[in-house]
C-alpha cells in the first residue's frame, strides 16, 4: 500500500508544480508585453543538465514504485477448448457457469494448494474479478455471443499485498481446472484392489469376475454411446473392445472356470458353503412363496372385475394424422394383469435360483478333495484376473485417448503479468511530463512579479 501512496505522491507533486507554474505564468503575463514574453521563452535554455538529471532521478524513483504497483495486478485468460463450450455447456452437457471460476470452493482450494498464509477465502475472493472476454449485446439476436474465453483479474488489496500476484492467479486457475475436472469430466475409476482369492470360495471368485467384467462392459458401452466411431491408436473401437470382453466373460469365466468348478465340485470349505447355499435357498423360497401368493391375489382380483367394466375403458382419441380412433387405456384390469405377469416371472426366477443352488449343493456335497484340482483352479483364477486387469487397462487407455481427443486439453490458461513495453511507455510519458513541469517552473521564475 505504501508504494501506491508514494507513487501517487510523486505524481501529485509533479502535477502541482506544473499547475502552479502554469498559473504563475498566466497571472504574471500581464506584467510584460508580448515581445518581452516572447523573449523570455526564446532565451530559456531548454537543455538544462540539472533538470535532466533531476528528471531522470525522479523518473527512476517513480518507475520503482510504479513497478511494484503494477506487480499487484495480474490477469489470466481461461479458454474452454472442448466442443460443448460454444453452447455454453460444460463437457458433460450441464450449463456452464463462469462464476465458478472464483467460487469459494475454488478459492479455498487455491489457498490450500499454495499454502497461502494470513489470508481468508473472502479476502482473496474480493480481489478477484471474472468476466467474458467478448460480450455480445442483448438487443438483437444477431448480437448474441457465447464466450468461450473468460478473463480473471486479480488486484491485491491490503489483506493480500503480501502474496505474489502471479502465483495467486496461477493457483486460482489451477484450482479451477482441478475443480472442473472433478465435476465435469469423465473419470476412469475402474481399477480396484485385488481381493484375497485364498479366502474366497471358488464360486464367489467367479461371481467377482462377473462383476468386474460387467463394470468394464458398462464403461465401454457407455463410452461407445458417446462416440461409437472413435478408433484408438491400436485401431480398436469401444464396441470391438466390449465384444472381446464379452466373449472372454462367456468362454473363460462362464464356460471354463465356472463349469470346471461345478463339474468337479471344487470347494474350499464344503460344510460352510453348503450351509450358506441352503440358508440362501430358504430365503429365496420365502420370496417364491410370497410372489406366488401375490400372483394368486392378482388373478382373484381380475376375476372379480365384471366383463362390463372392461368394455368402458375404450376411450376416443386421435392419431398423428388427426383421425379419430378408439384407444384402450391402462386401467385397473390392465395394471393387475401386468402385476400378475411380473409375479409369475419372479416365481419362475426364484425356482430357477433354487434349482441352481440345489445343483451346486449336490455337486459340492460330493466335493472333490483332490489338491491338484484346487491348484488348477487357483491358477485359472489368477490367469483370469490378469486378463481382466489387461482388459481394464485397455478400456482405461481407450477412454483416456477418447477423453484427450474430445477435451482437447479441456481448459487452457494464459497468464498476463506486467508488460515491460507498457511500463517503459508510462515512464517516458512521466519523464516528459516531469521535465515539462520543471521547465515551466524555470520559465515562471523569469516573469516579473510587478510591472
Amino acid at each position, binding site marked *: 500500500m505504501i508504494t501506491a501512496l508514494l507513487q501517487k505522491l510523486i505524481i501529485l507533486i509533479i502535477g502541482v508544480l506544473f499547475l502552479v507554474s502554469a498559473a504563475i505564468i498566466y497571472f504574471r503575463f500581464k506584467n510584460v508585453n508580448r515581445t518581452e514574453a516572447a523573449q523570455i521563452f526564446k532565451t530559456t535554455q531548454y537543455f538544462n543538465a540539472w533538470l535532466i*538529471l533531476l528528471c*531522470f532521478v525522479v523518473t527512476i524513483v517513480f518507475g520503482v514504485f510504479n513497478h511494484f504497483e503494477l506487480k499487484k495486478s495480474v490477469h489470466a485468460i481461461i479458454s474452454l477448448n472442448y466442443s460443448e463450450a460454444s453452447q455454453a455447456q460444460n463437457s458433460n452437457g450441464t450449463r456452464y457457469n463462469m462464476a465458478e471460476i472464483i467460487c469459494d470452493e475454488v478459492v479455498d482450494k487455491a489457498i490450500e494448494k*499454495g499454502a497461502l498464509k494470513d489470508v481468508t477465502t473472502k479476502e482473496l475472493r474480493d480481489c478477484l474479478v471474472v468476466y467474458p472476454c467478448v460480450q455480445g449485446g442483448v438487443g438483437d439476436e444477431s448480437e448474441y455471443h457465447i464466450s468461450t474465453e473468460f478473463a480473471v483479474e486479480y488486484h491485491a488489496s491490503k489483506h493480500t499485498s503480501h502474496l505474489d500476484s502471479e502465483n495467486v492467479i496461477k493457483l486460482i486457475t489451477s484450482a479451477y481446472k*482441478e475443480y472442473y*475436472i472433478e465435476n465435469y*469430466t469423465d473419470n476412469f*475409476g475402474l481399477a480396484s484392489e485385488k481381493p484375497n482369492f485364498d479366502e474366497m470360495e471358488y464360486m464367489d471368485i467367479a461371481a467377482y469376475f462377473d462383476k468386474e467384467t460387467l463394470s468394464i462392459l458398462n464403461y465401454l458401452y457407455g463410452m461407445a454411446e458417446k462416440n461409437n466411431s472413435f478408433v484408438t491408436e491400436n485401431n480398436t473401437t469401444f464396441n470391438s473392445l466390449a465384444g472381446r470382453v464379452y466373449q472372454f466373460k462367456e468362454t473363460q469365466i462362464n464356460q471354463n472356470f465356472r463349469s470346471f468348478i461345478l463339474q468337479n465340485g471344487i470347494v474350499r470349505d464344503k460344510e460352510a458353503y453348503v450351509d450358506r447355499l441352503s440358508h440362501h435357498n430358504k430365503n429365496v423360497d420365502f420370496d417364491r412363496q410370497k410372489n406366488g401368493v401375490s400372483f394368486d391375489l392378482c388373478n382373484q382380483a381380475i376375476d372379480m372385475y365384471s366383463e362390463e367394466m372392461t368394455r368402458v375403458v375404450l376411450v376416443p382419441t386421435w392419431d398423428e394424422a388427426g383421425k379419430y380412433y378408439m384407444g384402450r387405456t391402462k386401467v385397473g384390469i390392465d395394471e393387475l394383469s401386468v402385476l400378475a405377469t411380473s409375479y409369475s416371472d419372479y416365481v419362475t426366477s426364484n425356482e430357477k435360483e433354487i434349482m441352481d443352488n440345489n445343483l451346486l449343493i449336490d455337486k459340492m456335497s460330493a466335493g472333490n478333495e483332490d489338491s491338484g484340482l484346487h491348484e488348477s483352479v487357483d491358477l485359472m483364477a489368477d490367469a483370469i484376473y490378469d486378463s481382466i486387469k489387461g482388459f481394464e487397462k485397455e478400456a482405461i*487407455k481407450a477412454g483416456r485417448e477418447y477423453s484427450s481427443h474430445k477435451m482437447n*486439453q479441456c481448459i487452457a490458461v494464459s497468464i498476463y503479468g506486467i508488460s515491460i513495453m507498457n511500463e517503459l511507455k508510462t515512464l517516458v510519458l512521466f519523464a516528459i511530463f516531469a521535465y515539462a513541469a520543471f521547465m515551466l517552473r524555470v520559465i515562471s521564475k523569469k516573469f516579473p512579479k510587478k510591472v
Partner: protein
Amino acid sequence: MDKFLSPKAKKNIRAAKFFAFGMIFVCLATAIVIVLCSYIGNRNFRETFYNVSSIKADSPLRVIQLSDLHSCLYGDDNQKLIARVEELKPDVIICTGDMVNSATDDADFAADLGRKLSKIAPSYYVYGNNEVESIYDFPLNEKELDEHFGFTKANRDETKLLEIKDSFEQKLEKAGIKVLKNEKDTIEVKNMTVDVYGVLNSNPSSFWSYSEKSFFDHIYENSDNLKITAVHEPFIFEEFSHDFWGDLMLCGHTHGGVMRVPVLGPLYTHEGGLLPERSGGLVYGRYDVSGKPLIVSSGLENKNILRINNQPELVVIDINKF
C-alpha cells in the same frame, strides 16, 4: 585550448561534463541499489508454480523440484526451506543435482537435507556436475569413460559406470532419499504408477553410449505409467531430438542465466555464453520438448551477487488429467 573558446562554449562544456558525470553517477547508484536489493531479496526463495497436463494423471499429482542449492542455507539447517516444502504437500520430491558444492565435503549436509525431505514424500536425488566432479576422478564424457573402462564402441557396457559405488550415494540412501543413477524407480501415488528416471551422465557426448538402454527401458516399458525424467543439465534436450523423453522433464544447472534483463531474458550461462536463449539454449522456465513439458529451474543458490532479477526458486509442478 580553453583560451580559444568563448565563455558560452566553456559554459556549455562544463554543463555537458556535469551532465555526463551526473548521469554516470545516477546510473551507478541505481545499479548499486538494484544489486543490493537483489542480494537482499535473494536471501529468500520464491515459489514458481507450473501446471502440466497428462492424460495418465487420474488424480492431481504435485511434484516439487529442488535444484542447485550449492550448500546454501535458508534458515538454520534449511528449516525454512523444509517447512515450506512440507506446507506445499508434495507427492514426489526431486532434487535435480548440484545440491552441494562438493559431494565429499558436504555429504552430511546433503544427507541431512535428504533425511528431512524423505520424511515429507518419496524423494529422489540426481547428481549434478558438482557431485560428479567430486565423486568421479574423470569427467563423464564418452572419451574419458571409454578410456577409463578400456571400452571401444563395439564392446561398450553401460552397466560398468553404475558399478562404481560411492559413499555419498550410500549416505543419501541411508538418509532415505533414493539416488537415481541412470535408473528408474517406480512408485504408486494416489492410485497412479509413476516412473522417475534420473540421468547420471547428462553430458551429451556420453548420454546415448552410457544411458541408452536404461533410458529406453524407462521410456518404453509400462508406457501407461506416468514418466518423469530428471536430468541436471538440459543439454541432451538441446542436442538430440527424440520422439518421447517422458511426460515431464526436469532440469537445473543454468541458474536461470544468472542475471535476467527485461526483454532480453537470461544474460549468461557458462555453456551458452551471452544471451543464451537467443541461440536456442534451454535456460529457464518451461519449454516444449517433443510435445511434452521440460522445466528448467533457476535453482536455489543465493550467494551470487550478480544474480539479479532472478530470485532463487522452489519449483512446484501440479500435474492434472487435462
